[in-house]
């Protein structure tokens, strides 16, 4: 779907991030690369919440740090508010740091234990020279009130707060400079469920109050469905499906998304019992040596020879010549029809784990060989 350029806050175009694996102490040589993010293109529209889901190790956090340019890119371009930020150096990035903020996963690790809360929340003001002395203190206390903390706790240490309160401190810090975009890297994963709801509500209230744009990373599918306008699903460094939250949860087109959704827990036990689970074979392949073609083919129930050789693009798909929703992008040659039963599908190709089982070799041995 074409969106007016003025509506787009951040555009990532074919973003690639590899981490080199080196050997040797003084004379290092590269022995391999972790393909953490491998050609991701997406846009973030003003005022929306873009959810980012996927298993552990699929590159969600790396992508987030590429979008905020905490990591240098291996290749690709990122445009923020019309400006190409993909090759800026650290000094040139300073103005961007005011516009883009991050909220981190671990509320215990993301606050310096040796500094007082007032000084932590006041950090953005100090770094960007925005406010000083009593004015900074006043602003910090306003922020604390805004996120539901007692402003009198200005002089306490992070250790004096609970996990949920600490995450509020992180939110206050991110909000200090009134950024346009906040990248939330699993902001609620480390909190217990009742606190998760509080933080999510806080984030949503702040979004409507300040017109914020969020990138919301999580592995909890129900949380992402609740907060997101659009959702991107990642697998092994690639976006496999990108659609509005409603469309994605109702009619997932990619077999991987279907499997992921079928694994999410459902609150109603009756419904849960009747539900069909799609159980995937094998493990996530190593990102050091990702599979050819479609990265999901070794585990996909619908895989064919085409999936091994041809890499599917992330585009709107059609089934039997009938175009599907044009805003629903899927990187799959054989998208799942609404109502199709994936559990009945059998792959047309021999997949590593199954092949090995058929040959009488322990699947574990093959997997062990695949790992570095």
């Amino acid at each position, binding site marked *: 779907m074409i969106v007016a350029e003025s509506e787009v806050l951040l555009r990532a175009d074919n973003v690639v991030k590899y981490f080199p694996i080196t050997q040797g102490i003084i004379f290092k040589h590269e022995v391999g690369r972790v393909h953490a993010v491998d050609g991701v293109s997406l846009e973030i529209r003003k005022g929306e919440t873009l959810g980012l889901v996927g298993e552990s190790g699929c590159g969600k956090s790396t992508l987030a740090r590429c979008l905020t340019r905490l990591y240098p890119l291996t290749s690709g371009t990122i445009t923020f508010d019309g400006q190409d930020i993909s090759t800026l150096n650290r000094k040139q990035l*300073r103005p961007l740091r005011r516009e883009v903020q*991050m909220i*981190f996963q671990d509320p215990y690790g993301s606050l310096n234990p040796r500094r*007082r809360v007032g000084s932590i929340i006041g*950090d953005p003001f100090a770094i960007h020279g925005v406010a000083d002395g009593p004015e900074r203190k006043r602003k910090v206390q306003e922020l604390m009130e805004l996120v539901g903390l007692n402003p009198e706790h200005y002089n306490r*240490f992070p250790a004096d707060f609970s996990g949920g309160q600490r995450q509020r401190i992180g939110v206050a*810090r991110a909000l200090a400079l009134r950024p346009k975009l906040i990248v939330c890297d699993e902001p609620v994963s480390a909190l217990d469920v009742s606190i998760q709801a509080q933080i999510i509500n806080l984030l949503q209230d702040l979004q409507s109050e300040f017109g914020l744009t969020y990138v919301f990373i999580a592995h909890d599918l129900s949380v992402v469905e609740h907060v997101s306008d659009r959702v991107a699903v990642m697998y092994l460094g690639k976006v496999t499906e990108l659609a509005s939250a409603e469309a994605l949860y109702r009619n997932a087109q990619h077999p991987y998304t279907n499997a992921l959704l079928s694994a999410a827990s459902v609150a109603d036990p009756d419904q849960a019992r009747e539900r069909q689970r799609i159980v995937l074979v094998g493990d996530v392949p190593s990102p050091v040596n990702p599979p050819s073609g479609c990265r999901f083919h070794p585990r996909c129930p619908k895989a064919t020879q085409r999936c091994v050789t041809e890499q599917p693009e992330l585009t709107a798909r059609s089934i039997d010549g009938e175009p599907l929703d044009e805003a629903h992008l899927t990187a799959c040659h054989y998208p799942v029809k609404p109502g199709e039963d994936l559990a009945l599908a059998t792959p047309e190709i021999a997949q590593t784990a199954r092949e090995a089982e058929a040959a009488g070799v322990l699947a574990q041995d093959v997997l062990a060989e695949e790992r570095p």
Partner: protein
Amino acid sequence: MSMTELAEAPTPAGDENKPRKAVEGRSPWQLAWARLRKDKVAIICAVFIVLLALVSIFAGPLSALIGFGPTDQDQTNGVSTDGLPVGPSGLHPLGTDNLGRDILVRILYGARVSLVVGISAAVAAVIIGVIIGLCAGYFGPTVDTILARIMDVVLAFPFLLFAIALVTVAGPSETIEIVVIAFFSWASVGRIVRGQTLAIREREYIEAARSLGASDLRIMFVDVLPNLIAPVIVYTTLLIPTSIVFEATLSFLGVGIIPPTPSWGNMINDSQAFYQVAWWYLVFPSLALILTTLAFNLLGDSVRDALDPRSERLFAARKK
């Protein structure tokens, strides 16, 4: 010792979880101070060190009270008719040396040398070590490799030989002594700081600071350094006695403080020829050295326990 200390000291976890009426949170320093105050050994050692410092500052008036200067030779009562040192008496509380000089007065002046050289060398070593260690740990592998190798080279030097050679060339003086001691001590501080920095720079709050646009210098000194202060303070208090002994060694070998200026090292050296007839000449300067070293070491141990009760045996391997 440490068991009773631990039993008396409140654990930090229990202290931090307790609901507090005061709005102001107690800083880790305040908690450590509270623990340190309950440690009797630490208090005794601190009192001893403070007394020693006062005594060395007021060595002049005190020696006037005794009636002899540090280089005054008491020819009438300070030497026996055979020309040997005289034992402790009302006139010379700790006896005299072979030239009739008062040992107590000379020990007081020697304390001045020991403390000045010991503390300034330790502080200089810690400052150099912290800066180089921070840089090595913070600025990636290339800088780290270079600086870590330099530290290895310094640690591998035969320091006594080098010290003697340098002093021979430059001529003995207090300044040269401080420089030599600091030069051979910073590398071990640097290593500790480097290791801690390597661990801390991977923490999420460093990444958070980076995402806020903080400069490297700001991250190093505002975010990393406060987390290093505890081991650095502990190391400093343990480095002071080492430096004092180092100073005494140099003076003993005749390449430190030049006689007649008294230092514990050159007093011990001078006493060698007389210890069979004048035990006080050897015993009292040695005792001063031992007690001072012991006090600093015990205080260092207590400070370490107070700052971080969990890492109780962090420096155990270092203690001799």
